[in-house]
């Protein structure tokens, strides 16, 4: 121990310890620290008395307020839900699609909630503006695979496409090339024909392929896509004469589609969303307009 010294700045004495030149002052603990400690301790005790806090054996102190976060959140959610139903949700549930769409005041909350639901659930594939992308349909193009009425859209959302619900919509385009139903020449021919239907710019040598391609189409494709290639919404077979191409319209892309076949997936949302939410989403999607 070194002799205690008085520090000139603070007027306090040192403890007499020196560690490589470092000393300590004997300053008492400021009162405010005790006050602060007492305050926070009181707060803690209050928490323990009012809320579930201390465990004992297989149970715990329940707290005077009888507060339970699970009950609180369940009640709050139920209350908000009830208010929404009373306000406008009940009407959406009760009325049919045409009636709702004819009521601008009712469509206002439907659009708000529809947009939110769409962005949180659908936008990951279909895009924020619902314009889709390679492999995912553009919902503003009105080129529907399974039908574009509000009712059928709602049904598609509920069951999904090639989804996990038992009554899911299911469809598959066969792998004509991979499974050796058509050879390379035949595929090139039918691709030339299909592309000619929507007036796409022909690839080199396509002119001579269109006629034989038509023949192949009639034998292999027409059963699903129909004789006039306008598709079949019963089977989810797309219209091949319009301007909408989910997987691309250039020769290579269409060739790949015919060669490998296609089988898109959409989740069965009935397993995750309520019927009301699905109805709102269908209304929202149905009223979407293509971006200018």
């Amino acid at each position, binding site marked *: *121990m070194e002799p205690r010294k008085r*520090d*000139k*700045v*603070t007027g306090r004495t*040192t*403890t007499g*310890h020196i*560690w*490589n*030149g*470092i*000393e*300590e*002052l*004997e*300053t*008492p*603990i*400021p009162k405010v*620290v005790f006050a*602060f*400690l007492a305050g*926070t*301790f009181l*707060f*803690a005790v209050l*928490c*323990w008395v009012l*809320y*579930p*806090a*201390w*465990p004992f054996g297989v149970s*715990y*102190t329940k*707290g005077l307020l009888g*507060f*339970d*976060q699970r009950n609180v*959140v369940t009640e709050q959610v139920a209350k*908000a839900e009830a*208010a*929404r139903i009373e*306000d*406008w949700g009940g009407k959406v549930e009760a009325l049919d699609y045409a009636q709702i769409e004819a009521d601008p005041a009712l469509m*206002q*909350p439907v659009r*708000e*909630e529809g*947009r*939110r639901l*769409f*962005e*949180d659930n659908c*936008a990951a594939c279909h895009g*924020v503006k619902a314009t889709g992308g390679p492999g995912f349909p553009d919902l503003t193009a009105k080129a529907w695979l399974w039908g574009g009425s509000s009712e059928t859209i709602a049904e598609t959302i509920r069951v999904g496409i090639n989804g996990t619900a038992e009554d899911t919509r299911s469809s598959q385009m066969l792998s004509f090339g991979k499974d050796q139903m058509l050879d390379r020449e035949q595929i090139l021919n039918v691709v030339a024909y299909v592309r000619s239907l929507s007036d796409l710019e022909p690839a080199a040598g396509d002119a001579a392929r269109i006629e034989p391609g038509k023949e192949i189409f009639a034998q292999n494709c027409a059963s699903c896509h129909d004789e006039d290639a306008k598709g079949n919404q019963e089977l989810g077979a797309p219209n091949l004469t319009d301007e909408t191409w989910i997987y691309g319209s250039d020769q290579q892309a269409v060739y790949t589609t015919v060669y490998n076949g296609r089988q898109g997936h959409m989740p069965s949302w009935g397993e995750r969303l309520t019927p009301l939410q699905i109805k709102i989403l269908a209304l929202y999607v149905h009223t979407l307009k293509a971006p200018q």
Partner: protein
Amino acid sequence: MPQRADAAALSYRDCVSAKIKCLRYYRQQKKRVSRDRVSLLFMGDNDMISQLTSTERQYALVILVLMSLCGLVMAAGGRGDPLGVHGFVVLAFSVGLAFVLISGFYAPQPDPEQQTQYYDDPTKVGIALTMAWAVFGMFFGVWVASLLAWPDLTFDQAWSSFGRMRPVHTTGVIFGFGGNALIATSFHVLQRTSRARLSDQLSPWFVLFGFNLFCVLAVSGYFMGITQSKEYAEPEWYADIWLVIVWIVYFAIYLRTLARRKEPHIYVANWYYMAFILVVAVLHIVNNLAVPISFGSAKSYSLFSGVQDAMTQWWYGHNAVAFFLTAGFLGMMYYYLPKHAGRPIYSYRLSIISFWGITFFYMWAGSHHLHYTALPQWVQTLGMSFSAMLLVPSWASAGNALATLNGAWHKVRDDATLRFMMVAAVFYGIATFEGSFMAMRPVNALSHYTDWTVGHVHAGTLGWNSMIVFGAFYALVPWLWKRESMYSPKLVEVHFWLALAGAVVYVFAMWNSGIIQGLMWRTYTENGVLAYSFLDSVEAMHPYYIARAFGGLLFLTGTIICSYNIWMTVRAGKALATDNDAEGDIPVFARNAVQAGE
């Protein structure tokens, strides 16, 4: 004419001899410079190896051979698994060190006189490793921050995806930068405040290199996709076991050196360092209890599941903040701040109650990370209430540090080194208040899962941990290498302002984005529907993410400047005129006062 011929002959001869002299001189210089350079990089330093006794050299070789064998076994047993790759990493690490060791194996025995001095070689190497990890870890921090603003910056590589690079950043800065800084400074502080040399010369090297091997395994594992998915405890079972071994040796060094101390009392800095080592060992062992799917596989399954797993993880996670990022760094502060300020600690009693307060209260607080989850509410209430009480010892520590500066505020104004430490204490106070505040359930309802949490963590790590390390290093480097001052005090000043600006920009960006996120997620329209989708909130974050990346870049720039400054201080700093350092870093109490090693 003959005169001219003579002159020509002479000048030719002169030329040749001058050239030879020149070459010889140049070679000597080159040799000297490269030796200096090597002794900086330390890896191949004969001087440092010649400090080891021949017994220690033999033990070191045995350990390295054992480690190499371990690496071989891992490589063989883990064929076709990332574990095999890590086997080769261990092998390369051990063989590399063995080569360095063998290069100086037959150097003469060290002068017994050295046993009467402090042993600072591991601290010097530790400082270099700290700065290397700092630049590495912060670089990845800036990268992941930029990734959030510009997602294409992964360049479509698996290893550069956010999920892999984020733990590279956190491990790089927390363990690589923070851990090495703690190890390096703890060896220095331990000896000075005990007035005793480290208990032996081999175990500090084992701890330092062993710990860095752990960090290398961790980081290289993340790039390959190895993780046990526990935040801040991502490394898999074999790396965890290795860290336990290293950590036990670390604690043994502490106990053995303290047992040899010449001071009657143990200085407060050492309590903090010891709490850090001891509690981190407990946390690490319990949270990482796991069963590997086979000894030939890197993958393991945790002993805990469900909410117990979550609770164990956050008991670990929060106390890692408490004992790795707080206790250890408080130890650093309690030595370098009063030492550099030349002031006595404001209150001995305050240090004591703060120490025990922090140690006691922190242990309960982890459950505040799981508010409003499946965790039973009574655990949440306890976590919340203890977090409130925790604020008292936290602020008492910060207050004790700031009050210690009374009588030295003019130095704070003039000296960026001390200012680093002062700002660190202020940020420590801010971050601990914020932490307790966010632990209140109603506040947490807003802040949880938002960037506010990220901002809070960085107020602590950038503002408190990094600043105290920089302050400590700027004080320590001239002492250790016996320089008059840092190579460039001006660059210290530049670094200070870059670091402060970077931290402030970062924290403000995250406060804003976090609170905006929290509010957007709970805003309803008058129709009772959520006003914003999650995507809306992501879009709203974009400007703040750019600001955050910019703040991080400022901070990284400061760190690079710091590394350069330290490098130049070691290489070209002005040597102290006398051996008798006025600062008293050289044993003050004459040589025989330092207890000789065994």
